[in-house]
């Protein structure tokens, strides 16, 4: 099993940390992982993306051009990455702010109202965990208990009290992906 994922959106949406939690969860699942960010002059409001690879084997190239799954959180990222999903792959996006919808017919396209659901939960910070939940519903590559373990390893100790809230957000994501 090798799952090659791009997560892309605005800086500040938690794109990189969602990738990190996914990668740590992969380790807890006993997989090989890599996490490769677009780094540089990124700032709040700018674009940010990260490539995460979760595999049974040693990851060859952490930098890839075609993805099994694209998790898309803004229009620029949709424009950039829709064409880079492998045929038969998955595209998951939050329709909030999307004006030009994806048009491909050879991939699975799903939506998650992440921003809306986070606001319903009364905490905009769990947005990325809702998205992660939606992703894991579509691509069940990691068990929930390992996601929880991944959170424990990627969050600083002082934030561990927020793990139950984050796991609830994962569940909300799983229940609401369309």
């Amino acid at each position, binding site marked *: 099993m090798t799952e090659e994922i791009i997560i892309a959106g605005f800086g500040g949406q938690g794109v990189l940390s969602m990738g990190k939690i996914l*990668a740590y969860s992969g380790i807890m699942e006993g997989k090989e992982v890599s996490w490769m960010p677009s780094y540089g002059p990124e700032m709040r409001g700018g674009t940010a993306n990260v490539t995460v690879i979760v595999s049974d084997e040693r990851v060859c*190239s952490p930098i890839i051009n075609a993805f099994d799954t694209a998790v898309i959180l803004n229009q620029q990222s949709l424009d950039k990455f829709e064409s880079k999903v492998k045929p038969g792959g998955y595209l998951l996006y939050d329709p909030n702010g999307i004006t030009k919808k994806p048009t491909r017919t050879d991939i699975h396209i799903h939506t998650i109202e992440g921003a809306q659901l986070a606001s319903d939960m009364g905490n905009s910070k769990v947005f990325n965990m809702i998205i992660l939940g939606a992703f894991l519903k579509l691509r069940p590559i990691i068990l929930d208990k390992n996601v929880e373990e991944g959170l424990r390893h990627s969050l600083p100790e002082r934030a561990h009290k927020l793990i139950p809230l984050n796991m609830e957000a994962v569940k909300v994501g799983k229940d609401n992906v369309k």
Partner: protein
Amino acid sequence: MGELKLMKGNEALAEAAIRYGADAYFGYPITPQSEVIEYLSEQNPYERTGMVVLQAESELAAINMVYAAGAAGKRVMTSSSSPGVCLKQEGLAYIAGAEVPCVFADVVRGGPGLGTIQPSQADYFQNTKGGGNGDYRNIVLAPSSVQEMCDFVALGFDLAFKYRMAACILSDGAIGQMMEKVILPEQKARMTEEEIKAKYPWALTGRARGTQHRVITSLDLDSAKMEEHNRALQRKYKEVEANETRYEMINCEDAEYVFVAYGSSARIAQKSVQLGREAGLKVGLLRPITLWPYPTKAIDDLIKKGVKGFLSVELSCGQMIEDVRLACNGRVKAEHFGRVGGIIHTPEEVLEAMKKQIIGE
């Protein structure tokens, strides 16, 4: 087994220095390696081991602090990225001349000049062929994973002290910025003053009454002595070449065509090998781990085993290809392929280049 973590290459490099029992890190921030000094500052290793971390006022100051601490027999590291490493070349030439051990990491970005902050491998020449003045060499280690960013700190220090010379960890923005699984080694204790005195009689540890004073310098105005000093350096470098060449071969047993790539390009080329094998091509990968000393003999062996051509894959306009061609010595075809300016080649285009430039129609 040590502690398992998910870390950036830059963070692994920094943590490895603490755990090796390094005495000091002197540096100056620059993208894409600022996480090294950021991580060290955050960890405050002075509390953990007594290791000193200092942000110098410039790269020049940092390398000269390294020169001084190394001369005192301390395990000292610095790091920077391409333009910053240019600034350090004067100090590195002095360090080579004075035979001071140290470790420096270069997390390469695109050039020339300020260039770009994106990954590049265009400082191969600078680090393997000199950069500073005089007939000198630095040991150059090329990590291609976060684990190796960690492991090569210990290896670098071991080699630097074994041969009293600088060991360079030549990385790039991709390896520095990516996160991977890493198994961290156990914490080692720093050497005590007594241990340094006993183990490194050359080190400047203070002069006891009635003993000869020790001098660490790159300067000698006596030409005869300077010639002998240079000859001695070259004998040392020959010994390093004979004993410390390291490389990895992947799918080379029956290979007809071989990619030669290090660092992040080696990761990409490994995928190209996989794609090529799936398409029925007998391709393999030679991954130099030491760029100096270069695995010339490994290329020679491959030619003797029947390899018909090599493609040197680098994020540069063609630097390592010169060493590949020297090793081939005209016997088989050797060409270069690489994207530059911060663009990273894909496994598909690397394989395509092998088909077009080496295998032919």
